């Protein structure tokens, strides 16, 4: 291309072009999040559509999910998940400043809080399935509940797996300041998982009753 540039220059120099700045990692992660939102949006729309469509007599959301009856279970868990978003932000900041130790600590805290949420969900499910007798085949509520909450839990699990991977790498001393950007992308995913939980919580636990 060198030759041609010279040739075009001889006639009249066009204005020097500017280059772009947007970063591919961020753009890709945003796109991933948008498509995930489309996925969860569909599940949640179906859940909304089926609210109250079960025949009376089968287990209804108000029988088992009423937040005012059992606040400790879900609200407690939610607080754990949502606050983990704060810890991960702090962790990324530490890494960006080169404070690996601080990064490792906040990161570990994030993982622990996320894990607590997962355990909480597991216990809730155990209660619903074993005690209340609600399964995915019971009725529309069961189908919707386990699908929506299950997919969310699956995303939390994937997130935790990736977070742990980074943690292991940190312990092996392989994480450095220059990885702050990759790690930040992971934190975006984690924020998304939290954000979706707000939507799930609102629809399943509040509107659904």
């Amino acid at each position: 291309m060198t030759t041609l540039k010279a040739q075009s220059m001889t006639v009249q120099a066009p204005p020097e072009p500017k280059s772009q700045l947007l970063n591919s990692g961020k753009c890709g992660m945003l796109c991933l999040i948008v498509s995930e939102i489309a996925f969860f949006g569909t599940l949640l729309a179906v859940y909304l559509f089926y609210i109250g469509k079960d025949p009376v007599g089968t287990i209804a959301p108000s029988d088992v999910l009423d937040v005012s009856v059992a606040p400790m279970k879900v609200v407690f868990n939610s607080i754990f998940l949502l606050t983990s978003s704060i810890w991960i932000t702090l962790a990324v900041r530490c890494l960006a400043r080169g404070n690996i130790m601080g990064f490792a600590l906040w990161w570990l805290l994030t993982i622990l809080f996320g894990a607590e949420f997962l355990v909480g969900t597991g216990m809730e499910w155990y209660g619903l399935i074993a005690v209340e007798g609600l399964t995915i085949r019971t009725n529309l509520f069961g189908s919707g509940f386990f699908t929506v909450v299950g997919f969310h839990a699956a995303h939390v699990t994937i997130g935790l797996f990736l977070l742990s991977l980074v943690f292991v790498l940190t312990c092996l001393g392989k994480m450095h300041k220059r990885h702050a950007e990759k790690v930040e992308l992971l934190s975006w995913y984690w924020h998304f998982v939290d954000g979706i939980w707000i939507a799930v919580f609102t629809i399943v636990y509040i509107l659904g009753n």
Partner: protein
Amino acid sequence: MAPDDHSNSKQQGIDLPAPTSAPFVCAFGVTLIFSGIVTNWAVSILGFVLALVGAIRWWHEVLPDNQKECIPFQSERPIVKPKVGGVAHLMTADSPHRARLPMEIHPYGAGIKGGIAGGIVMAIIAGTWGVVSHGSVWYPVNILGSTILPTMQGDDAAQLAQWHTASFVFGILIHAIMSSLVGLLYGIILPMVPHFRLAFSAIAIPLMWTGLTWASLEVINPLLQNEINWLVFIGSQVGFGITCWFVVSRSERIGTMQNWSMLERIGVESPNVPPIGGDE
């Protein structure tokens, strides 16, 4: 994954992402996981293991940094050469290209006037035909009225020759509206017809209109098909066309904004004032 940085590290080549079978293995694993659902759980297990192997390899490729392979420059280098010979430019608005836009038009009122005049001529022709063939002026009026009056749709020729108040009112109304609308259309179209405007109004349009009526009559009122004398029908259309053409073409023409500049059309400048900065 972070973007791959395509920098030009050494002068004799370019760094590109190194080939890797990780995506292949990982994708195969993922597929097997799903296949297990319809075959055997063991397939899913195998798939999971493969997917994990693929993923770990993949991470090794990109973590902590992306793996690169240096591709040496190839000997052949493409050159885009300037072309000899000038560049032709399309003709611009000054020499209109295949577009025939009327620079002057007849006022819309002239079209309506022509339509009304033509409508009267048409009514006279049709009325005469009614008297001659069925002994009644009302016959053509009733034919028109019966297209929208459901009560009259089964009437035979004898009934159509009698006086019907409703049919008269509606018949005249339809005729008046249609005549003025068609007249308006004439008034708009005529300035755009390049040649033979009389033939256009007196032959082409009447024939087209008759064809349209003939074809759509089956939908509008199938029983009417035997009641209409198509020759007279065409005759009355021709009468309309000639009259309408006569009235319209005698009217005074007014200029359009077609040759005004954009600024003039927006109203920022008035026409006939030379545009700022000479001609463009």
